[in-house]
């Protein structure tokens, strides 16, 4: 059976969720691999969420928020902009490939962009293969 990546998309309510919605209502055709979780702001995205997604079987996680300067709460997306790169550095030390976690800014009018980002990430993760949690960790 061919591998279909499971990607968890954590999208902010004000821009990115609306952007994903626009991609849908514009009948854009794109990879159906992202499971969307709506949060109020990308600043709400605790790095724990990303780890929990991997624990629950995700092959990749994409966090989307408003473009810098456009956050509904003024500066929540800047918090995400700092947390995700630091998290990615830590995940690299834990052997998780860079492409498996992605931070993107998607505005409410960027349905096309959301679709393109999802297509690109799906293709990258398809090449990487599935994320198996205990890879290399057997006792025996």
């Amino acid at each position, binding site marked *: 059976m061919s591998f279909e990546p499971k990607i968890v998309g954590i999208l902010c309510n004000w821009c990115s969720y609306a952007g994903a919605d626009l991609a849908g209502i514009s009948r854009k055709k794109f990879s159906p691999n992202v499971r969307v979780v709506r949060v109020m702001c990308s600043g709400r995205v*605790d*790095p*724990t969420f*990303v*780890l*929990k997604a*991997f*624990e629950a079987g995700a092959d990749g996680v994409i966090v989307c928020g408003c473009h*810098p300067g456009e956050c509904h709460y003024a*500066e929540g997306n*800047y*918090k995400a*902009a*700092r*947390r995700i*790169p*630091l*998290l990615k*550095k*830590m995940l690299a*030390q*834990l*052997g*998780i490939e860079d492409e498996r976690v992605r931070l993107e800014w998607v505005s409410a009018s960027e349905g096309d962009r959301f679709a393109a980002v999802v297509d690109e990430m799906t293709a990258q993760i398809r090449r990487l293969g599935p*994320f198996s*949690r*205990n*890879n*290399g*960790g*057997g*006792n*025996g």
Partner: protein
Amino acid sequence: MAKPKIALYWASSCGGCDVAVLDTNEKILDIAGVADIVFWPIAIDFKYHHVEAMEDGAIDLCLFNGAVRSSEQEKIAKLLRAKSKVVVAFGACACFGGIPALGNFTNRAEIFQRAYIEAPSNANADGTFPQTLTRVSEGELELPEFFDTVLTLAQVVDVEYFVPGCPPPVDIILKVVDFFATGRLPPAGSVIASDKTLCDECQRIKEEKKITRLYRPHEIIPDPKRCLLEQGIICCGPATRGGCGLRCIEANMPCRGCFGPPPGVIDQGAKLVSAIASIYQGDSEEEIARMVGEVLDPAGTFYRFGLADSILKRKHCQQP
């Protein structure tokens, strides 16, 4: 009534937890007065077969320190579990993996390669590695199997109580003994420490948490009165359980996280990423890259004691 029986064991640990028990000084005599110590490899000459000969549940309290990283440690953990009414994960290693769990950044093959081949003090021209079974003319020699992954005690057996710390402070050890002596045991699963974070208990002056540069402890002499984090030193206090008596903070050193995550926190490292990234000031790509660069070793710093107990538990190795 017969005196209650206590067993103490060390698995993958440094011995500091056993020393912490001895640090109770003259109170150790009180412990010996209210209980019989029936097994304590570091101090008393009882053997495994003495424990094996006991009835199940014969030991009232087992204080188990150290992580589990070999088949021998796993076997003794299961043996002591069967023989003990109450098992306590004693110290950071038994609770969260501790320093030995930093071995989860690698695996058995890499550790053996380093220890038996690459280390400069080796004289191992034949490339000999430890074997679980070796046949010699006199018979067979056995060694315990070395695990790829360091485990916490609770990942191997059921555990009633958790006593964190590297090592657990004396007042908490005496509290455990007192709970036990008076029969006022907390509900199973309790962590015997504070329910607050270290920051909650810290007495330093805290102003606004805004930093523009991170310092490593040797790069700066911190003001002993002010919050270390506000001075740019990575302190694990925001995501570490209190109850430790602020030993490091009072020595003007940042918290290293040995009490594990506070209640409600699943992953100490993820919360520390969140905390440090939140208070760092800077929104441009250059400033963010600088912050990421200044945290030299995020996984080693934020999971210093907790890697085995974290969500990912170990480095994700590429399959051969």
